């Protein structure tokens, strides 16, 4: 005895959704995965409890239990934090131990919260929770302001490439809902976040305890005209970071029901694919063409990143689990030496002599750590020399794998740029890694300047007129501002506007532009990684000469490789090299296309264009991030001038210079 719903085996997919025919025209709600971070006392559990409660996501029985527990504890109010503090041991100690997942929904959107505790093993837990998140809520206690851990959470969010960060300034009820308290925290945090890769940063004043600005607009903070937290969560653009360009398909499982059918099951990691696509199977390199994209519901014209499908190929090629099917004209890096940032999670510290298993996409290979390049102090962001990593440490590693791996930089694709390390003795997961790229040469050790080439039989003499004397006469310090970013991001526009302003204020300036130095000085060089490196070496040396002459030198170079930029940085004294990451999405740059390069690349006339088919290694901790999608030229130039003042390069007051206006 069953009801009359047709079984899927007997019907076509279209007819299988009877309710769809009933005329529900509204789009299916989408899904936002976000993570929350805060310490024990920031009120994180209360905030999540409030979101669950006010969206009606708490079943009656749980609510009753919380009500009873609140009464038993004599709390005199409904303690919403009890909703989420799961295991009994945690409830008794008033702490949350592990990452917990919560679910709630509104008519517009489904939400998955990865709730991570702020204190114990914070780094490991937050990395776990953040790995699948598109948004992070960082809680700040309004009474305490921006603490070290608030910065730590921001840094980890940026490390994991979370596109949206919301700073929820909580406990506004305990500071009389005062606007100045909120604004001071906002200014403080923005200042810090300038050093991070955070594409979107939002501040919301809330009281989780009383509900102000969580779901309902607060009447007690009329000065705040932004959205409530829930409204922001509902409105934020999801999937913006999804890579729909680089087709990558890690083969999970081979489906072979009989001799005549061989399908390769997997989930599209990035990009899109349809029948007829010319593909290559890596790491082997065999070529073929996609015959069909199959699902149990019928073949598809196109599958996109995130879809679980079955591919069939035109040719009888040998494909098995762990291989990666990719677009023929858009290849990932295939290499055995990998440069990565990693968070250590194992109880035992990283053992440089040990062999680990690296799980990457669907492939598992043996690997060892060739070098710990440096460790990052997550509180100060300083790099420290270290020979190992301990649990909760984050560091930069160079790994060597036993077989070649096909990968992309994590910044470009999380699915093909991430890996875990497994200890083969215990089978424990001991590290989470984010690939920066192929390790092309010995990485720059922390603090050491690399050796510069020197011609034979020459001796270094000090400069005739020391730079300090030139700076004293100029009335400002010398510096190198290195503008890096994709073609079309706005490097030249910003640098030209800034130089004009500095020059008008009487400063000694010089602008070195990528195209200019490639006329003459570097006219003999092309665009291979080696030639790009040489080009930047020469440009860096030239910048240094102008620097010693007392100028503020503005350099605009795509400079896609971090190692090349680091080499220039190492030529200059600390504090005098300011890396300015000029940032815009590649789609935006392609739309601007000031030099027509993207159009040429699209027509197939140009190969190796950064951001299209050549990698861009975004700076890890640039001095300045200039997001040209969000801010205009004037605002960014003003911010740069401010920064030069703060660094002491420009005098605190506009210079009154002999040659001045």
């Amino acid at each position: 005895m069953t009801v009359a719903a047709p079984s899927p085996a007997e019907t076509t997919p279209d007819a299988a959704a009877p309710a769809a025919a009933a005329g529900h025209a509204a789009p299916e709600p989408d899904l936002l995965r976000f993570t929350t971070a805060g310490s024990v006392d920031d009120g994180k559990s209360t905030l999540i409890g409030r979101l669950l409660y006010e969206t009606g996501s708490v079943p009656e029985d749980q609510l009753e239990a919380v009500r009873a527990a609140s009464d038993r504890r004599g709390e005199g109010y409904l303690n919403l934090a009890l909703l989420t503090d799961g295991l009994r041991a945690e409830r008794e100690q008033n702490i949350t131990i592990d990452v917990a997942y919560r679910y709630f929904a509104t008519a517009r959107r489904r939400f998955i919260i990865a709730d991570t505790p702020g204190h114990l093993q914070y780094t490991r837990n937050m990395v776990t929770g953040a790995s699948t998140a598109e948004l992070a809520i960082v809680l700040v206690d309004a009474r305490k302001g921006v603490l070290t851990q608030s910065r730590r959470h921001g840094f980890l969010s940026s490390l994991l490439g979370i596109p949206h960060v919301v700073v929820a300034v909580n406990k506004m009820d305990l500071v009389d809902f005062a606007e100045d308290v909120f604004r001071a925290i906002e200014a403080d945090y923005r200042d810090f976040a300038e050093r991070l890769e955070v594409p979107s940063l939002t501040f919301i004043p809330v009281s989780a305890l009383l509900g102000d600005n969580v779901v309902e607009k607060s009447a007690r903070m009329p000065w705040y005209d932004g959205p409530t937290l829930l409204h922001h969560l509902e409105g934020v653009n999801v999937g913006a970071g999804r890579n729909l360009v680089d087709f990558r398909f890690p083969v999970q499982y081979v489906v072979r029901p009989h001799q005549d059918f061989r399908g390769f099951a997997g989930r599209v990691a990035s990009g899109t694919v349809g029948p007829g696509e010319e593909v290559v199977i890596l790491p082997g390199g065999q070529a073929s063409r996609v015959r069909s994209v199959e699902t149990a519901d019928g073949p598809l014209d196109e599958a996109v990143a995130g879809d679980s499908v079955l591919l069939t190929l035109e040719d009888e090629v040998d494909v098995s689990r762990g291989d990666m099917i990719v677009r023929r004209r858009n290849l990932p890096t295939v290499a055995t030496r990998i440069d990565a940032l990693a968070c250590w999670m194992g109880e035992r510290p990283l053992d440089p002599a040990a062999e680990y298993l690296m799980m990457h996409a669907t492939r598992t290979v043996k690997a060892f750590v060739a070098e710990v390049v440096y460790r990052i102090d997550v509180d100060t962001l300083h790099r420290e020399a270290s020979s190992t990593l301990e649990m909760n440490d984050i560091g930069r590693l160079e790994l060597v794998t036993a077989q070649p791996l096909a990968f992309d930089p994590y910044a470009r694709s999380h699915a093909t740029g991430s890996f875990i390390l497994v200890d083969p003795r215990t089978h424990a997961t001991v590290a989470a890694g984010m690939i920066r790229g192929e390790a092309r040469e010995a990485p720059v050790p922390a603090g050491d300047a690399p050796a510069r080439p020197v011609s034979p039989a020459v001796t270094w003499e000090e400069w005739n007129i020391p730079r300090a004397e030139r700076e004293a006469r100029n009335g400002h310090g010398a510096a190198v501002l290195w503008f890096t970013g994709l073609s079309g991001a706005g490097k030249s526009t910003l640098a030209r506007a800034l130089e004009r302003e500095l020059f008008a204020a009487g400063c000694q300036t010089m602008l070195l532009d990528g195209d200019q130095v490639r006329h003459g000085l570097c006219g003999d060089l092309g665009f291979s990684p080696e030639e790009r490196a040489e080009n930047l070496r020469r440009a860096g040396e030239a910048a240094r000469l102008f620097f010693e002459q007392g100028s503020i030198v503005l350099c605009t170079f795509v400079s896609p490789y971090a190692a090349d930029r680091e080499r220039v940085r190492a030529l200059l004294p600390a504090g005098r090299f300011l890396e300015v990451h000029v940032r815009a999405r590649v789609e935006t740059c392609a739309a601007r296309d000031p030099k027509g390069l993207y159009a040429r690349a699209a027509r197939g006339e140009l190969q190796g264009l950064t951001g299209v088919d050549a990698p861009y290694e975004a700076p890890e901790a640039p001095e300045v991030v200039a997001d040209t999608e969000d801010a205009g030229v004037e605002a960014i130039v003003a911010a740069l001038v401010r920064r030069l003042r703060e660094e002491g390069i420009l005098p605190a007051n506009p210079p009154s210079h002999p040659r001045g206006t």
Partner: protein
Amino acid sequence: MDSEPSSATQPAAELPVPPRTGGVRRGHLAQLESEAIYVMRETAAQFERPVLLFSGGKDSITMVHLARKAFWPARIPFPLLHIDTGHNFPETLEFRDRLAASVGAELVVRTVQASIDAGRCVEEPGPNPSRNGLQTVTLLDALRELKADAALGGGRRDEEKARAKERFFSHRDRFGQWDPRNQRPEMWNLFNGRRHPGEQFRVFPLSNWTELDVWQYVGREGIDLPSLYYSHEREVVERDGMILAVDRHNAVLPGERAEVRRVRCRTVGDVTCTGLWESAASTLEEIVLEVAGARRAERGGRGDDRRSEAAMEDRKKQGYF
């Protein structure tokens, strides 16, 4: 000042069963389905002898549906394992056999009665004994017999708070035990199923689904469910605040009164302990609205039913999982 009101205060208007979304955008059901299929394929790839635990409930029926999709056009590459307490609703067993036959999967049934007969466990004393606790013995024996290294289950993280920290790949020691403090962190879509001989995993592809998601998915896919889930008239008895079906394994006790009511199941377990839900919801749309509405209802009302139902689910989990 006047930001748009959040939609939290205007529920349900578009709730029942959303259509598929085209283009590159994917709705939540498509994403959850894709994730579940990915996890099932990982299980088939990383383990030698997985089994799919089949209880006859809507979650495990949904699991079978997803497994069929994950390995189509091949058959599901692992057996369905049903631990039969002997106290099932007759509808469940009939449905189980038909489903297994229609998807062409191997069905393995192991009974609690056999465990009792073999002296592996002892029936509870008293009237209407529950076999909920006993089935754990049968389950672990069956996994050992089948040399299963992974058991796929339909557990969801939204079911209760302790479950909220469960992994997709949940590691069990040689004794089948779960240590919440010794679970492997799961990052991105990288699932570590490596194990020592004798160790097992429980795998939960529906981890990120909610009860409502399951119902909406059942509606969108047209998944056939046992009639127990839809409103029907049945002879029931009220006991300990629960409404229970009258059955040969669940006799009316002295002082109780059997009566016919309109009820349906929200979860399906043994006849002796499956709390029924008074409901007139006889179509999928009505059930979706009821499930959504129950959670959105004014906080107060019918706590008794809910509490007992949750308690039942807890017992089921301790026993089964």
